[in-house]
């Protein structure tokens, strides 16, 4: 068997038969012209999608209750980002594969303190508003248990909230401490558009890192709501879809498919497990020439007879 394989390998090294004239440069030129025509034609016919991005201002105006609910969750750390873990904070160990905790080991590279960055900080930057500053000071001075009591009560109340005049949030009366005025002020800041810029500002003037505003918006409902309409959710095979009816990253189909089936679809470590599976499959894909069984599939399922049918016909095989 080994001797036969070695003989086959040696025989496949060089072609000892006939050659035919061939113009490589001409073929490449024609191929480039064909692809240019195809890409241009598809562009003229179908164009490309460009749905405007969402902003925090837009979110807070369209969905003020959802914004307020998210802001309270950021304040008490119960939001998705608040309890994410690395690389944003230490509030969770992150995902792992058996004893391998890569997410934890690589550390907090993009630190986010949701209460400070999304609520307290922006409120403190509001000028000439002693009422808000007093509310923030009261909140920060309160014991953690009291803070939790206030945010819990306000979160419950937001379940029954209605939208008032000017896109304000109206909740039933209750013991919310300074949380109600704080969130109300933050809503006003957000609706003015100031929070979009505030979350980008840091030490330098030019900004390209949208981590904080994007994660804040992702904790809310606007992005997910738009994504659902556009068939982009994970349960809708979102990673390989594109807005509108355009083809997206269809080459990610295998990556996406794992999220649709158990145990991945129900696992807390789904992302890590899917990455592991795809890593192993990618390695196997590259190493096919060395994988017994897999490398023999083309010989056992003779589709090559179709590929080389002209050759076999000419040689009488």
């Amino acid at each position, binding site marked *: 068997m080994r001797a036969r394989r070695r003989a086959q390998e040696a*025989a496949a090294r*060089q072609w000892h*038969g006939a050659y035919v*004239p061939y113009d490589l440069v001409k073929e490449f030129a024609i191929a480039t012209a064909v692809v240019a025509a195809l890409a241009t034609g598809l562009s003229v016919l179908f*164009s490309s999608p460009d749905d405007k991005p969402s902003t925090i201002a837009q979110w807070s105006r369209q969905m003020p209750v959802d914004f307020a609910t998210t802001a309270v969750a950021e304040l008490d750390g119960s939001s998705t980002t608040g309890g994410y873990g690395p690389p944003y904070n230490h509030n969770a160990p992150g995902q792992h594969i058996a004893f391998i905790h890569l997410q934890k080991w690589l550390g907090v590279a993009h630190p986010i303190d949701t209460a400070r960055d999304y609520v307290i900080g922006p409120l403190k930057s509001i000028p000439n508003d002693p009422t808000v500053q007093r509310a923030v000071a009261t909140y920060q001075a309160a014991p953690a248990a009291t803070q939790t009591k206030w945010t819990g009560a306000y979160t419950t109340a937001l379940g029954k909230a209605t939208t008032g005049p000017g896109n304000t949030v109206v909740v039933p009366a209750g013991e919310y401490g300074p949380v109600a005025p704080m969130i109300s002020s933050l809503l006003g800041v957000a609706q003015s558009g100031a929070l979009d810029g505030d979350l980008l500002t840091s030490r330098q003037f030019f900004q390209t*890192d949208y981590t904080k505003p994007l994660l804040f918006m992702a904790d809310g409902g606007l992005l997910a709501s738009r994504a659902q309409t556009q068939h982009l959710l994970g349960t809708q095979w979102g990673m390989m879809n594109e807005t509108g009816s355009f083809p997206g990253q269809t080459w990610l189909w295998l990556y996406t498919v794992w999220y649709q089936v158990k145990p991945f679809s129900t696992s807390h470590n789904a*992302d890590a497990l899917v990455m592991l599976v795809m890593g192993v499959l990618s390695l196997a*894909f590259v190493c096919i020439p060395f994988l017994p069984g897999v490398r023999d599939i083309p010989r056992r399922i003779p589709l*090559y007879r179709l590929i080389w049918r002209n050759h076999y016909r000419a040689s009488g095989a």
Partner: protein
Amino acid sequence: MSVSERSWTGRVRERAVGALPPDKLLPDQQPAYVSSWIYVFGVLTLAALVMIIASGVILSLKGPAWWHDAGIGHFFNSIHLWAVELFFFFMVIHLWGKFWMAAWRGGRARTWMTGAVAFLIAVPAALTGYVSQQNFDAQWIATQAKDGLNSVGVGAFFNATNFGQMYSYHVLLLPMAVVAIVIAHVLLVRRHGVVPPFELTTPKAAAGEPATLTGPPASDGASVTPRRADEKVGAHR
């Protein structure tokens, strides 16, 4: 040994020309069995890559916001998008074709591996493009992709929600990587040639005896003359 032969430059030149002499690098003949439409998809993939780079360069010249504001910018973005779709479409067919040919046979494992790696590098090259679009699609994909990347620690140094970093990867680092691996792949194809059909893998051929098989007539009617491998080993794809 002359001075030029002893120099590093001379040695590099000698090795390069020895591995890929001009008639192997740019052959004007190919094995007669290279006679199927499946062979076209390799060169189509290369052509699509050229279109991606050309349209990408034009978009880069005007900056990342241009295509949102100008009609002509949007048109070039459309060409960029469709060239990417065509690139992956052609490459996947090319890879499947090469799989069913068992194209790694006869010392061509590195050719297969560089092709497979080119596909794997092209995936993040495209992903960074999608998250650099500065539209809703980019927002959504970035917030979704971060979870997979974070779960295995990659997110600590490759932040999908950092537009500046993703844009750098998309317009420079990953295209350079794709082009480098594609060049390596093409040079390996040129060096080792196209894998012969299965039936030729016989002990007789392995022993270096002249093959008795002849290929099909060339499409342009040119005559076909069987040759020894040491006469001409150039091949394509």
